[in-house]
């Protein structure tokens, strides 16, 4: 307690609000206490009746901000804010100081919040000339309340975040605004920069190429724009640099007595860049908290050539000598490969001629199965891409490259061996944290996204984030055409291309969403055949893509994009396009979750613009192959009557549900593993 008071005093007369406090010893002491003194709630398993209780509380929290109450609160903000319009700059400064002081003292009541928001809204008006809509204020209001605001695409989320970020920034513990890529972090920080400046807040941006010193500085600012990747890896690196067992008691003792200012501790205090996790405002929250959370973040010691690389090559060779069906069975639905008895025998025969390493049947089977999995279940340009001689994982749902991630347990090596690349050593895990656990470390979380309603339960049960839907400023007038079903991918893609050609003649801009890089290439070839000028986006170079996406609304534009490409950038309709009916979004496949479908459709019909969404799907889509009810799919393939009965609607509905559940299961497993080693393997605090 004493320490906390001291820190606040320091902040009071220290250089808060001024950019870049010098990393002095005093400052680093101030920075340090938080990561270790705040012990986040330990994850606990919710069982039986408690589960219902929790569900009820979640539903109640979501329902707490009814539209009427929320609008009334936001109206008050707008009203008060409008009354500030006639204030002089100096008078506004005084208001700012009042609001900031209130925030600093931890006033969180509605009155203080109304005042603070009004001040920020006025500052936004004066600096960037935007008058925030009531709906935007509503979004900020629930975020300030620790909720997740679901706001449709194009409603101005970037600016909305400004309101909450400013209030959290004033508190002085550092507010992290989390974005999905470096470009967006930079752009948003620049966009809102003038506002923060006017409000006396310092802003920092962490980019992939930022050096530790720059990071330290950026984290020390009031508001930090950063991607989830940078944030989480910085956290892990900090943990590695900290001494092995940072227990609260000993650290506190050091702080209070100021005895450990010299010696080895000096070394690590300056290598730690983060000053604690206090408040996170997460943009595209579902993408970060849900899609990213299917694999934990792991920091490993980079190894060079793997000592056991040869084994992976051999395993890949062995795998080639086995025949599918006879020696091993592939189960797409359960996503696994199993050796048959014949396969094991065959392996034993081959292994006789191999070095003794291959004599153990279990080890042998494991390695070869791994190689088979790499061959049968992981496909180039679908699950991964090869760049710079290494394998990069692609998120199969969004087409986004997961930088710096590796598959675990030798799968990565097996894929490398399959592609004939250099097998890098399996990175020895040094620190690991799941997204679930990491974001639970924040004392205050809030977020915004276009699509979160589908995962509202998970958002509550894992992150304690109630999802609140914010109405759009203008009514949405996007048209959805009925889905079209095809028997196979070829005919589907041809139909899409024909449709695009037809639309292109009228001059309407078209955005074609594909699931994988490979699909977007195939689509592109078909469009080339029909001599339709188009651009392809693969979610690799965010900045250029943002430009392309922004131009996708021009008349006659045809854009092929994976789902995540250019996310965060609005597609603004070109002149005359609205009269043609607006942008047409064509989904070439259903995604694993309805949420991601909606993300794609959300590209059209923003801010009351007209728009249209169409879906083309085929019976051999990955979704159906992996999660569909096989007998039903067979029936649909054969029977015209079944197609007439629209049984396919059920097939897809079920497959999508199963797929989302499967994803949720993976995340749940990660949470469970967290829980397990938290409870059982607490040997070290990594």
């Amino acid at each position: 307690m004493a320490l906390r008071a001291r820190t606040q005093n320091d902040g009071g007369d220290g250089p808060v609000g001024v950019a870049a406090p010098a990393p002095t010893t005093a400052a680093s002491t101030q920075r340090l206490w938080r990561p270790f003194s705040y012990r986040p709630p330990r994850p606990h398993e919710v069982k039986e009746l408690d589960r219902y209780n929790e569900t009820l509380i979640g539903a109640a929290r979501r329902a707490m901000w009814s539209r009427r109450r929320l609008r009334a609160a936001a109206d008050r903000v707008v009203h008060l804010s409008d009354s500030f319009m006639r204030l002089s700059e100096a008078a506004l400064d005084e208001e700012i100081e009042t609001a900031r002081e209130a925030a600093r003292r931890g006033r969180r009541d509605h009155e203080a919040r109304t005042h603070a928001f009004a001040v920020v809204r006025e500052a936004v008006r004066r600096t960037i000339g935007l008058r925030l809509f009531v709906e935007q204020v509503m979004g900020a209001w629930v975020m300030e309340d620790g909720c997740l605001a679901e706001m449709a695409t194009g409603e101005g989320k970037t600016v909305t975040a400004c309101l909450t970020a400013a209030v959290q920034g004033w508190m002085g513990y550092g507010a992290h605004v989390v974005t999905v890529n470096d470009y967006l972090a930079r752009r948003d920080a620049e966009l809102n920069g003038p506002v923060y400046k006017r409000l006396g807040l310092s802003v920092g941006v962490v980019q992939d190429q930022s050096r530790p010193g720059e990071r330290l500085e950026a984290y020390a600012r009031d508001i930090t724009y950063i991607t989830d990747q940078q944030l989480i890896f910085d956290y892990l690196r900090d943990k590695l640099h900290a001494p092995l067992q940072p227990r609260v008691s000993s650290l506190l003792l050091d702080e209070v007595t100021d005895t450990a200012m010299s010696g080895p501790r000096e070394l690590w205090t300056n290598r730690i860049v983060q000053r604690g996790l206090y408040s996170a405002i997460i943009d595209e929250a579902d993408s970060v908290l849900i899609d990213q959370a299917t694999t934990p973040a792991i920091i490993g010691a980079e190894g060079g050539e793997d000592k056991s690389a040869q084994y992976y090559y051999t395993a890949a060779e062995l795998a080639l000598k086995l025949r599918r069906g006879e020696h091993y069975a592939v189960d797409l639905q359960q996503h696994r490969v199993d050796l048959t008895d014949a396969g094991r025998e065959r392996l034993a025969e081959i292994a006789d001629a191999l070095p003794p390493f291959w004599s153990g049947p279990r080890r042998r089977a494991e390695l070869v199965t791994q190689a088979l999995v790499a061959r049968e279940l992981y496909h180039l340009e679908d699950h991964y891409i090869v760049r710079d001689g290494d394998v990069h994982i692609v998120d199969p749902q969004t087409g986004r490259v997961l930088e710096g991630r590796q598959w675990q347990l030798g799968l990565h090596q097996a894929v490398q061996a399959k592609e004939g690349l250099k097998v890098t050593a399996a990175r020895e895990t040094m620190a690991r944290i799941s997204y679930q656990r990491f974001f639970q470390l924040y004392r205050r979380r809030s977020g915004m996204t276009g699509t979160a309603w589908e995962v509202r339960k998970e958002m509550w049960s894992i992150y304690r984030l109630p999802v609140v839907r914010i109405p759009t400023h203008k009514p949405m007038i996007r048209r959805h055409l009925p889905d079209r079903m095809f028997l196979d991918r070829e005919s589907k893609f041809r139909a899409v291309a024909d449709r695009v050609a037809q639309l292109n003649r009228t001059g309407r801009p078209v955005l074609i969403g594909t699931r994988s890089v490979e699909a977007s290439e195939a689509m592109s070839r078909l469009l080339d055949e029909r001599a339709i000028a188009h651009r392809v986006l693969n979610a690799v170079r965010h900045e250029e893509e943002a430009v392309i996406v922004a131009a996708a609304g021009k008349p006659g534009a045809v854009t092929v994009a994976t789902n995540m490409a250019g996310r965060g950038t609005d597609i603004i309709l070109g002149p005359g396009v609205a009269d043609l009916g607006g942008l047409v979004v064509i989904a070439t496949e259903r995604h694993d979750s309805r949420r991601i479908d909606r993300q794609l459709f959300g590209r059209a019909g923003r801010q009351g613009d007209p728009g249209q969404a169409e879906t083309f799907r085929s019976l051999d889509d990955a979704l159906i192959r992996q999660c569909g009810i096989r007998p039903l799919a067979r029936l649909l393939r054969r029977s015209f009557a079944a197609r007439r009965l629209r049984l396919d609607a059920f097939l897809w509905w079920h497959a999508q549900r199963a797929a989302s559940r499967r994803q949720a299961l993976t995340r749940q497993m990660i949470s469970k593993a967290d829980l397990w080693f938290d409870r059982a393997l607490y040997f070290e605090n990594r």
Partner: protein
Amino acid sequence: MPEISRTFSELWYRVADFKPRLSTHLVVRRHIYRRNVWFILGDPTSSKFYRFNAAAYRFLGLLDGQRTVQEAWDICNAQLGDEAPTQRDCLDLLAQLQLYGLLRNDLPIDIQRLRERIEQIREQRFREFSGNYVFWTIPIFNPERFLAKYANLGRAVFSRWGLFALAALIILALRAVIPRWEEMAGSVNSIIAVENLPLLTLAFLGLKALHELAHGFACKAFGGRVTEIGIMFMIVLPIPYCDATASWAFPNKWHRILVSSAGVLCELAVACVAAIVWARTDAGLVHTLAYNVMFAASVATILFNINPLLRYDGYYVLADLTEIPNLSTRSHELMKWLTRRFLFGLKGEPCPPLHDRGEGAVMVAHAVLAFPYRLLVMLTIVLFVAQQYFIFGLLLGLFGAVMWLIVPIVKGLSYVLSEPTLQLVRVRAVTVCFGLIIAALGFIGFVPMPARVHAPGVVEPLERITFRAAHDGFLDGVYVANGEQVSSSQPLLAIASPDIAHQYERALAGVQLERARRDAAMVESTAEGMMSDTLLADAIERLRTMQAIVDELSVEAPFAGFVVAPDLHARLGSFVQRGEALLLLATLNDMVIRAYVDDRDFAWLFPNGLDAQDASRVRAQGRLYDHLDEVIDFDIDLQRSGMAGTRTLAHQSLGLNVRGGGIAVDPSDGRGQRTLSPQWLVTLRPRVPLAERGMNGSANDSALPTLPGTRVRIRLTRPPEPLARQWLRRVRQALSERFDI
């Protein structure tokens, strides 16, 4: 991502550099299970045991506080190759040990964790206590010091000599009981009588206390610690228990078995003593008490203690005999795996470790039998309680139905519908499950099942006559032997009555006199002759009457039949009183069966009362003694069947007092003929008369002839009906009976 590899684990880094070692207070024992070496780590402070296979133990042994986990694992791999525990195994192992606080390391103690752990344990205990609503246990005291003091006694008793002594005791008891076997078996009924309940409870409690002490002594005799004795409430019945878990660490399986069976052996000894006491005493308190002790020691022991399907002594004996420790838990796991793997088609989960196929078979059999048996026992207890205290029993029954039927079903369904790990095979799991449920429901609700009732009956002749002495007289002649078959109108016996003979003579003389008078009078005058005629007619009439009476004195067989007249020859010439039964003649080649049908079954068989329509629907079958291999069809004889319930049996032999009789009789009735519930007498006739079928020895010489009085079990079969309707009717009946609707 599928989990392909178990050799490596991505969580390994958390333990790789850790240098733990086992806590020093642990006790290690080497056990052999199914020819495999296992190590049991015992924690004497908590009387908990942990079982490790040889490879895991090797790994644990390498952890000496100096080596890191990584080093120990590397050594294991180098030494054991493919047999070495995987990283995943090691992680599980360490996690488990850490969880139970059996690892020591040099890290500072984390108070918060400790507190959480304590809270966890406390919560777990509370859950165990409150969750186990059927068997509440309340510890009472620590018998360790007492047992240690008398440990020598235990060692003396649980030795070879003790076994010999027990064997001798058993022989003595059998010698005492066998001569009075019938009497003993006959008294079983009185056990259930309400007035006997306190005595039975007393016997039961005393016996169980001895039982538990025996466990304690046995455990102590082989060096285990016994630290807890208490009382367990089985629904409402308090039963003492004794914590002899220390015996699980005994390396010798026979020692473990002996500890597990010590209680039963003790009860056996007590039962033997009680049997001897019972045989040597006459009716009285001691006699009854001894009988009750015998009953409690045998029946309850067989139902509960010895039975391996409930988790009592028998279960542990079985587990040790088959060398499958943790039988129940592991068989449950195995069943779960089998279901998930084969019923639901989920691949990739490793099969729970098994030593051999035999082990798997035992486990499956145990799992398949134990659950229904447990249900059955619960049901029996509930029914028993309900008989004594209806409302309480009803509540208990409702509670039981919720806990043992509805809750498992709901849990099972929600498992299939929402268990995350089943996500990959959800469609199949749901299809299979609902398919099975629908099949089961369809079977119960729609497939007609034969519905039958067994009724004890007696063979009786279709016709039979008892010949009684028509008048006082002396037995003059017996022309047939007992058991002889006679044809129609064959003379049977004759009675000489001098009185009647005299009267006959007088009547004869009277006729002659009157005739002479008439002849004389006819000469005198016609009028007088006419008068004499009347007198003569009177005299003749008198003579006729006398003639009839005389005829009655010699008896002829009215129909072909079988004579039952024991000792009649011996009475030849002796005086017989009028009305005295002398001889019985019965038809033999045409028999009827008189069967007793319980009131409930009767109402169920013949819902409209016994009318022709109902009777024709019910099929009656049975086997006769002379043709056991042949099932005979019977027709229900409506005329001869009773039209109301009776509580009196025609024969003692049908009552429960006699072995083989099936009808519960009132124990207070000395003759054993008054039944507890009303019985309906149903008369059945063989569809094909027995005579026509060439019965009575002609068809099968070696068989006994079917004699009147032999018992027959008749099977009455209703037309097939779905089980659901049958059950519904039973329930309705039970309710209407209870509430007199």
